[in-house]
Structures are given as structure tokens and as C-alpha cells.
């Protein structure tokens, strides 16, 4: 089981893991608040300034799975994997414009989730339920994939077990994560994010400087990669004509979906001010640069002669080949800790949503703040056990397919949430009808007879299913809203979206 263990790397790996575990438990006392209230446990008391928000969102959005999957896609097919760059460029102008509005209204009305806002805006609890369920269903496989990222590096350290023992290190790591998330809430990943992000910056900068030097420069790296793609269809250093529209629609669709996920919302709403969000929108692209550089590792793996059957092993194998053992341990620890932060925030986001938008409206409307907090803590455990079960009992491919489908589902709440920030023209009924159509249609498009397909052909060009389905969603929402006008009473006035300072000036 441990005969082939790389001891130096493993010791460095375990040391960092233990250090962040201590941080996770200590975090409960950081910026202390009453953890028996949901906004304290689940949003860190909305006390995170520009710096913390930057680290937390960076640690939360750029997940361990991303760090493995993006270079894996580049390794497999080349240029197309770079869709992650336009995708992340599109996000921040959107965050800059829309998210401060959401933050303002959430702060004034005490909202903790996107569904809270949707209910406040449209007064339709079935729409609230639809948005909540979408978030939870899309999040579960995403957490499971963080475990995949973690397991990849544990395997690369040389750990091989039989049967359930194969998953023993992962299970231990996850139980520890579950315990400190339970105790400290959002403060734990916020604190660990500092460690994660700094470690990732160090390893990426080292990798993109040291590896090309050893391989003879970037020119050589790209030449070697070009050779590796020769003769392959739809793979290469540039996009083929047939890949252009899929590339564009995948970038747009992914960007629209990202900030609908509960973990993104949790990160945004935990900011202390709209100013912290605007600052983050301007500084978070630093992580996108890192992501683009990580994508290039896929080419470097070709140049270094890494040959793997599963492209997801390309980056771990590249590091083993190019770096000294102690630094391999450091890089792998960065990736594993990189899994902990999003997994924690995702489970908190899903737990907040379950408590606020499913349990309270449908089961127990008279919950006290301390009931809410206890239930959310419990749910954060349940969500994590569920994700662990997915990994232990189902093929990994299932989790990957579900996560890709998650993007197709998540984008279906975009009209309800984002249009709602600007207009009351749409009705709850209309948006719910749109959601039903978009969700069903998107799933139908994606569910191929043998495998999941992300793209469908429309008018002769391939397009990302999420975008096709959300277009149908918007058409239906518009038509039905025109037919059924909303009630006129406004729970939220236009001033609720403005910053407090601007509202005072007006």
C-alpha cells in the first residue's frame, strides 16, 4: 500500500495538511461572532474586507478540480482548453456591475442566498424552491470533483490501496474538513484560503519559469505539443473552424453559470461592503492569469514526454518528473488544500440554501436563528458525506458528467436572479415556467445515448447546451410574464439596490 510512497514528498504534504487543519479549528475565533446565527456561521458575519474577499473568492472559484481539469483538457486537445481564459475575462465586468446590487439588497433584507433574493423579489415560493434545488443539485457533484482532484495527488504520491483502503487517506482528509467546517463555518475556508492561494501562486510561478528552462524554452514546448497533436482530429495549437462557435458559447455559458452557484454567492455576500466586491472584481483577474499559466502546463507535459492514459494525471506526473521531491510535496499539498477551500464553501452554500429556502418555507416556518444555524451545520455534514459517497460508490466519470450538467442547470436561474436585479417586469410564474423549460430542455440536449454531450448542433454550428437552453428559458419567461402580470406590491424598492452612500446622496 505504501511500498512505493515518495516519503520526502509525503512528509511535506502531510505537514502542510496538518497546519491548515489547525488553522481551520482556530478560525472559529477569528473576527468572533455568535456562531449560533446563520449569517455568522454561513457568511462570516458579512465582515470580510477587500483582502479577505479577494483571497476567499480566489480560493473558492479557482478550485483544485480546475487546476487538474483545465491543463488536462489542454493536454488532450490543445487550444480548445483555453476557453477558460475568455470565460474568466467575461466574469469580472459582470461581477463589478451586478454583484454590488445584490449585496446591497441582501444586506438590507438579511438575505443569505440567491433564493432568498428571488423570493423577496417575486414572492413565489415555488420559484424560490426551483432556484434552491438547482443550486444544491449542481453543487453536490462539484464537491465530489474536488475529491477527485485531491485523490489524484494522493495517488501520485505513491499511495495505492486495495478496495476501500484505496480511499482511506481521502476519507480521513474529508472527515477533518467536515469537522472544522461544522465548527467554524465560513471563517475556516476564509482563513485557509490565504495559505492555499499563496502556495498556488508559488508553485505556478516556479512551474512556468523552471519547467520551460529545463525543456529548452517556450518555443520548444509549443513545438513538442504541436507534434503530439499531429494527426488528431479537433486537436491542435489553434482552434479549427468547427471549434470556434463551441469555444465562444462555452465561455459565455460557463461565465453566466459561475456566479449563480451557491458557493460563489456565499463568497460575494460575505463581503463587508460593495466596495470590497468592486475591489475584488478588479483584482481577481490575477487568478485568471495563474489559471491561464496552469493551462500551459498541459503543453509542458507533452514537451517533457509525459504519457498518460488519463489526461487528469498529466500535471501530477509532470511535477514528479520535473521537480525535486520536497517541492512535489509542496505542489501536491497546494492542490489538496486547494480542494478543501471550495469544498468547504460549497457545502456551506448548499447548507445555507437548504435551510433558508427548503426547510424554513416548506417544513418549519417558525425557525429561530439558532435552529437555522444548527440545521445548516448538520446539512454541511450531510452534503459532504453525500459527495464522499459519490466518489466511493460511483465511477468518477459519473461525477464529471454531473458537474458538466451542473453548468447547464445552474445557468437556468440566471434570468430569475440577474434580471431581477434590474427589473420587476418578469413575473414569478413566468420565470418558473422558463426555468422548467430550460432545465428540461438542457438536460434533454445533454443526455446522449452512451455519453454526456456538452454541445448540440444548431443551424449547422455546434453550441454549448447551457446557452441554447437558457435562450429557450428566457423566451418562455418573457411570453408567460407578458400573459400573467405580476402583483404590483413591491417588497423591494429601487433604492435597496444602491450603495448606502449613494442612496443618501440621492
Amino acid at each position: 500500500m505504501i511500498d512505493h510512497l515518495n516519503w520526502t514528498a509525503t512528509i511535506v504534504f502531510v505537514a502542510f495538511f496538518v497546519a491548515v487543519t489547525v488553522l481551520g479549528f482556530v478560525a472559529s475565533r477569528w473576527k468572533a461572532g455568535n456562531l449560533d446565527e446563520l449569517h455568522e456561521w454561513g457568511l462570516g458575519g458579512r465582515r470580510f474586507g477587500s483582502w479577505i474577499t479577494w483571497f476567499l473568492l480566489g480560493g473558492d472559484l479557482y478550485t483544485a478540480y480546475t487546476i487538474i481539469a483545465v491543463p488536462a483538457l489542454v493536454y488532450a486537445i490543445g487550444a480548445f482548453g483555453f476557453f477558460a481564459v475568455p470565460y474568466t475575462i467575461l466574469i469580472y465586468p459582470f461581477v463589478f456591475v451586478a454583484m454590488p446590487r445584490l449585496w446591497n439588497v441582501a444586506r438590507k433584507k438579511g438575505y443569505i442566498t440567491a433564493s432568498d433574493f428571488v423570493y423577496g423579489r417575486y414572492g413565489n415560493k415555488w420559484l424560490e424552491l426551483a432556484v434552491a434545488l438547482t443550486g444544491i443539485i449542481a453543487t453536490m457533484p462539484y464537491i465530489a470533483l474536488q475529491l477527485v482532484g485531491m485523490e489524484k495527488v494522493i495517488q501520485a504520491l505513491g499511495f495505492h490501496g486495495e478496495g476501500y483502503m484505496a480511499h482511506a487517506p481521502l476519507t480521513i482528509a474529508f472527515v477533518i474538513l467536515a469537522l472544522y467546517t461544522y465548527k467554524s463555518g465560513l471563517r475556516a475556508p476564509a482563513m485557509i484560503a490565504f495559505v492555499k492561494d499563496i502556495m498556488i501562486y508559488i508553485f505556478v510561478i516556479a512551474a512556468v519559469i523552471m519547467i520551460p528552462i529545463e525543456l529548452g524554452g517556450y518555443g520548444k514546448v509549443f513545438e513538442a505539443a504541436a507534434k503530439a497533436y499531429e494527426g488528431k482530429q479537433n486537436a491542435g495549437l489553434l482552434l479549427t473552424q468547427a471549434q470556434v462557435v463551441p469555444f465562444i458559447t462555452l465561455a459565455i455559458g460557463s461565465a453566466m453559470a459561475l456566479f449563480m452557484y451557491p458557493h460563489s454567492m456565499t463568497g460575494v455576500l460575505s463581503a463587508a461592503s460593495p466596495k470590497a466586491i468592486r475591489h475584488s472584481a478588479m483584482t481577481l483577474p490575477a487568478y485568471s492569469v495563474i489559471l491561464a499559466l496552469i493551462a500551459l502546463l498541459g503543453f509542458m507535459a507533452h514537451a517533457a514526454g509525459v504519457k498518460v492514459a488519463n489526461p487528469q494525471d498529466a500535471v501530477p506526473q509532470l511535477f514528479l518528473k520535473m521537480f525535486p521531491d520536497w517541492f512535489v510535496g509542496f505542489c501536491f499539498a497546494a492542490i489538496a488544500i486547494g480542494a478543501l477551500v471550495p469544498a468547504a464553501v460549497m457545502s456551506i452554500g448548499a447548507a445555507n440554501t437548504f435551510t433558508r429556502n427548503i426547510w424554513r418555507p416548506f417544513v418549519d416556518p417558525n425557525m429561530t436563528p439558532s435552529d437555522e444555524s444548527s440545521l445548516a451545520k448538520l446539512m454541511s455534514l450531510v452534503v459532504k458525506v453525500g459527495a464522499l459517497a459519490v466518489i466511493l460508490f460511483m465511477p468518477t466519470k459519473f461525477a464529471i458528467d454531473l458537474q458538466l450538467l451542473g453548468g447547464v442547470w445552474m445557468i437556468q436561474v440566471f434570468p430569475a436572479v440577474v434580471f431581477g436585479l434590474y427589473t420587476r417586469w418578469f413575473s414569478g410564474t413566468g420565470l418558473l415556467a422558463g426555468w422548467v423549460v430550460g432545465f428540461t430542455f438542457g438536460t434533454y440536449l445533454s443526455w446522449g445515448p452512451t455519453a454526456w454531450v456538452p454541445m448540440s448542433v444548431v443551424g449547422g454550428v455546434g453550441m454549448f447546451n447551457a446557452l441554447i437552453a437558457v435562450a429557450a428559458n428566457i423566451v418562455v419567461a418573457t411570453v408567460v410574464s407578458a400573459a400573467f402580470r405580476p402583483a404590483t406590491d413591491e417588497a423591494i424598492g429601487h433604492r435597496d439596490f444602491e450603495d448606502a452612500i449613494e442612496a443618501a446622496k440621492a
Partner: protein
Amino acid sequence: MKYLVLLIPCVIALWVPFFNTAEPALGGVPFFYWFQIVMIPGSVVFIWIAAKIEGSDL
């Protein structure tokens, strides 16, 4: 209207036919890659301009 400036980086980032070429390469990196990487800080400039136009509290 004050946010229209934010559409500029989005349009450039999605204008694939413009940057889907190998030349001019930079230090061995094809244009497709280095241009997109440069566009990331480039997009920040537009967000900064939008913030100035808006006069928001920064």
C-alpha cells in the same frame, strides 16, 4: 450607459477569429495564447475606467 465600456473587453475576448492565429508569436508562444493572457490584465483597465466613470466608492 456608463457601463458600456465594460462590453469592450468582453467583445475582444470573444472575437476568436481575430486571435486564432500563430503569428506574431512572442518568445515562442503563439499569438492565440499570449494575446488572451495579455487580455486578462487588459480587461482590468476597462473595469477601472468604468469605476472612474461611475465615480463609485473605491
